[in-house]
């Protein structure tokens, strides 16, 4: 099986991959929902950070605990925990981000029946000196709690190694993204989706090797791609759990060449310094990385970032892809849209749940939007 095929297979059945790991290896697996989860510390503890994306199944048990206006990520994640589909997890990690994730943490602790549970109560306003100190303290606490919970010692050496591995993964993902942006006909949008999804669930030590192979393969065949006449589109929002989005946009005459997603560039952006205190270095990456709307780094930083991406990647139009009922992204939308309007960049708002809205409607929106682009 070639590397891409392998990553695709993991992404299409992440639970199967995890169960296989559980049956054949002693590495504990810890679930998490968001890219503020310090994966380096989990990796240094000899565990696998395993991202959760909601469920593909009907939601019924979770609704006994959560209102129907919670997003499908939170409801779906809880559903899978309550039905035992996540019983390969030794525990879960909840960084402080949006309200729903915080409350999910409490509900999870009481009902999911997992051996381990961690909260990492990160600061919200990331621009102050006190936020920096607080961030470092929280990450150090997480390190000790993880040591206790898993019965291991996390040495500075192990942290350096994990920081290096995660840096390498981020660097390779960045290369692959840039490759796709420059040669869209050589690597499909849905493949980017599968690569990212696999990257967030696989054993990072194995992943880094596979990504290096994939990058070598791509470099070998790159450079000969004829340019396509498709319109260049950027996805902006939280998580994307729907590979079909990429295909539907391609059918309509566009292609997603870049994103500002939690499951996309925000995941691999920035680098952890590999010298000095390793936990401080992790904190610094979180402080310098582009924020999600649940964090604050200045009034206009997200708009400026989006405008910069549009310029750098020669984007024709921006599709805001939000999970329905996602408050933080909903709150930031009017300001981001106004920012794009001022720049003359057409936008489309799409709110989705686990299942895509009726396909006909979606095609109509995408076709009209792509027609609008110059």
């Amino acid at each position, binding site marked *: 099986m070639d590397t891409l095929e392998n990553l695709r297979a993991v992404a299409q059945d992440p639970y199967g991959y995890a169960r296989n790991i559980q049956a054949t290896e002693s590495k504990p697996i810890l679930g998490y929902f968001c890219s503020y989860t310090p994966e380096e510390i989990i990796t240094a503890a000899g565990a696998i950070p395993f991202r959760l994306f909601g469920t593909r199944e009907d939601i019924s048990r979770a609704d006994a605990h959560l209102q129907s206006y919670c997003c499908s990520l939170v409801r779906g994640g809880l559903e899978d925990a309550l039905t035992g589909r996540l019983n390969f997890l030794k525990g879960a990690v909840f960084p402080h981000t949006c309200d729903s994730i915080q409350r999910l943490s409490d509900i999870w602790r009481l009902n999911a029946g997992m051996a381990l549970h961690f909260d990492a109560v990160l600061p919200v306003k990331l621009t102050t000196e006190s936020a920096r100190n607080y961030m470092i303290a929280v990450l150090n606490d997480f390190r000790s709690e993880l040591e206790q919970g898993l019965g291991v010692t996390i040495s500075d050496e192990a942290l350096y190694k994990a920081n290096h591995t995660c840096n390498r993964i981020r660097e390779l993902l960045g290369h692959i993204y840039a490759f796709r942006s420059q040669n869209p006909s050589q690597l499909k949008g849905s493949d980017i989706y599968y690569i990212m999804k696999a990257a967030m669930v696989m054993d990072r030590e194995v992943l880094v090797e596979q990504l290096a192979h994939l990058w070598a393969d791509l470099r070998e065949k790159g450079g000969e791609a004829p340019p396509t006449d498709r319109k260049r589109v950027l996805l902006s929002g939280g998580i994307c759990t729907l590979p079909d989005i990429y295909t539907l946009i391609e059918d309509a005459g566009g292609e997603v060449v870049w994103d500002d997603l939690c499951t996309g560039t925000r995941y691999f952006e920035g680098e952890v310094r590999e010298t000095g205190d390793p936990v401080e270095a992790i904190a610094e990456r979180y402080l310098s990385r582009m924020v999600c709307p649940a964090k604050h780094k200045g009034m206009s930083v997200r708009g400026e970032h989006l405008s910069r991406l549009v310029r750098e990647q020669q984007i024709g139009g921006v599709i805001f892809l939000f999970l329905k009922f996602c408050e933080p992204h909903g709150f930031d939308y009017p300001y981001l849209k106004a920012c794009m309007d001022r720049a003359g960049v057409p936008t489309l708002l799409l709110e989705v749940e686990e299942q895509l*809205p009726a396909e*006909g*409607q979606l095609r109509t929106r995408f076709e*009209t939007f792509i027609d609008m682009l110059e």
Partner: protein
Amino acid sequence: MITAGIDVGSITAKAAVLDAANIVGTKIISTGYDAKKAGRSVLDQLLETLDMAAQDIQALVATGYGRNTVDFADKTITEITCHGAGAHFLNPDIRFIIDVGGQDSKVIRINEAGKVMDFAMNDKCAAGTGRFLEVMARALEADLDQFGDIFLKAENPAKISSVCTVFAESEVISLIAKGESRENIIAGIHESVAARISALAKRVGVAEPVMMTGGVAKNIGAVKALEDKLETSIRVSEFAQVNGAIGAALLAERLNR
């Protein structure tokens, strides 16, 4: 150049034939169960009344939710783009279109050339659509064609607070049980539809002048309620319901064959 546009909507199928930007004729039929058949049939019926043959049509664009079932079309273009082109043709001043059809409602901002600049569509939900009005007309045993006129007679519109069509229907039934007048309930229903659509319109940003298209534009009550909510006057053309088909026929003219 003689061109045709076919707009296969969820409730009705529309066709228009244009000759060098003059409307030669239009036709509306029910879509029914078979969208593919409706697309063929509405054009055939129109050609028959015009005493024309299929060969006379030099270019044809299909639009509407059933556009992909029209297998003899030269091209398919979304109804949003077509409504933009159609409204611009009917009145070049128009900058904003509210298209309320059977299955969904759309708001479209266009530029001075009739090109779509921004748009929004309601989600998979019947609130704020022609279907919502149909359901309510049934609950009130009223004739949909008279809905608008009844609205104008209302003195004190009832408040319908539910956004969901199913819940709103039961709310209407409770209002009937309470003895609320039919006029007031019907006015309340129109205001509820207008509230949904104006929220959608404000998201895109209303630019004046505004035109309403689609089947619901025939309902004077819906137009009036929307005018109140948006605080602007709304133009309605006699071709409101076939506007999408006209736009499609216009865009067919621009195809390189």
